């Protein structure tokens, strides 16, 4: 979101083979959600096998429109480490996606106290480093 690349000291995801497609898509500003080809069921977080009874290894990545609702949220007034100095208050939320899965993320571009359960949100992409883009959410419209 910001033009200049600042030093980023916060924790970054370490990609696993089975999660790499998610992060590669995010880098291209696409949100993809894995689905079992056998059952058509979406699941999240990404795993090598479907967590359903099918235990399918046949996984497809479906591009999402990135729409969902805030299922719950917490305005954090303290971060987990010094790297978050100056950052709070920020919103950590569980977003219930239209696909039915939940994604944990931040709700950004909004006064934290204006966030509410049930609020419609839309994915945005935060290029935090050259290699990592974090999908985040902002109020829809």
């Amino acid at each position, binding site marked *: 979101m910001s033009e200049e690349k600042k030093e980023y000291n*916060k924790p970054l*995801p*370490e990609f696993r083979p089975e999660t790499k497609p998610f992060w590669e898509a995010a880098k291209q500003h696409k949100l993809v959600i894995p689905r079992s080809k056998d059952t058509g069921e979406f699941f999240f*977080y990404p795993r090598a096998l479907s967590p359903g009874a099918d235990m399918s290894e046949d996984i497809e990545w479906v591009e999402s429109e990135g729409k969902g609702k805030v299922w719950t949220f917490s305005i954090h007034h303290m971060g987990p480490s010094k790297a*978050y100095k100056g950052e709070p208050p920020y919103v950590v939320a569980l977003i219930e996606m239209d696909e039915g899965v939940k994604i944990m993320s931040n709700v950004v571009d909004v006064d934290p106290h204006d966030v509410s359960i049930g609020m419609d949100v839309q994915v945005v992409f935060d290029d935090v480093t050259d290699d990592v883009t974090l999908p985040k959410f902002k109020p829809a419209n």
Partner: protein
Amino acid sequence: MSENLPGIQETRELLKKKKVVIAGVGETEQGKIPNKSSFHFLSEASKLAIEDAGIGKEDVDGLVTAFSLVEHTFMHCTTFADYFGMNPRFFSSVAVGGATAVWMVAEAAMAIASGQAEVVLCVRGDNTLSGISSSGMLALIREMCHAEFEFPYGLTTPGGYALAAQRYLHDWNNRPEHLAAVAVTMRKHAADKENAMNKDPLSIEDVLESRVIAEPLRKYDCSIISDGGAAFIVTTEDKAKELGITNDLAYLWGMGQGYSHQYLTTLENLDQIYNAVERSGNKAFGTAGIEPKDVDIAFLYDCFTITVLLELEGLGFVPKGEGGAFALEGRMEIGKDLPVNTHGGLLSQAHLGAMHHVVEATLQLRGDAGNRQVEDPEVAVVHGNGGIVSAHSTVVLGNQPIN
């Protein structure tokens, strides 16, 4: 209903036949104690429990430990066996977060029922307060949350529980004072516990005006961090007699577990949490052959105020959504409907998982709880939860053999 759960009758028969008991307890000083290591606390607590039982170290043939947040070891139980100087024929490290201490009782009981051991020392100790900085505690969430899909968003440990609390308040139209009331009751109880860290009176207003950590949770909604150790000896009634143990015994009546989710990301709704608590409780109640209304005192995992409400309701002590009102009306206090955490819990006494919950349940059933003694309790329940209300364990203890 509970009697029909798988395994209930088998467990019940074993407990009736073996008469598993807690025969001794030990509790070191709790607080900020910078000059003692994790293994020092483990040893000291073990010694106190062995002495409380009036037996010798050589009488102990089983060992159940947990883990250390400060001194990580690959094989915690045998590392401690070496340090303490013992050679158990049964050893195991239980690691299910806050569900650990409660499940240590069950682990010991299963070892005893299957003949692997007769006298099992269960012990936990850690220099958490002195050994980990407060920022380290906030980051402890990394051990529980998803490192790749949750941690990069700045989630903290209180924040994880705050997510559950926010949804709880929303679903039941409750307010932060419903959470605060839990902290107030715990503080009231801690006042009569000699070995408690925080005894100063606390009001609802004090909680609501304390520093916001992760909305809706404030400082006093969060448990304390402490240094210390605690231990208990699990054996059978017969073996206790043989060893000449003179303590009144706390009899194990029932045990159960319930799992919901590991990561909040995969949590579907609050009911999933309730169901896991209920499964854990029903298995324990079913084994014991009792119902929630038969319980005289409850020890509920209170790492944050929200967990007590979810457990009160999930275990069936109050209808869903009514835990907050129950707390606010002071009905968890000693002398009221259901005394909860008579020692002050993790919110005010000390934080060593549910070790002190098990110790206090035993002391209450023995009638050894001093000024905070509940009048003639016969049945106690102890419930632990690990992760973000994700893994549950419950035991029912009685002051008489299971019937």
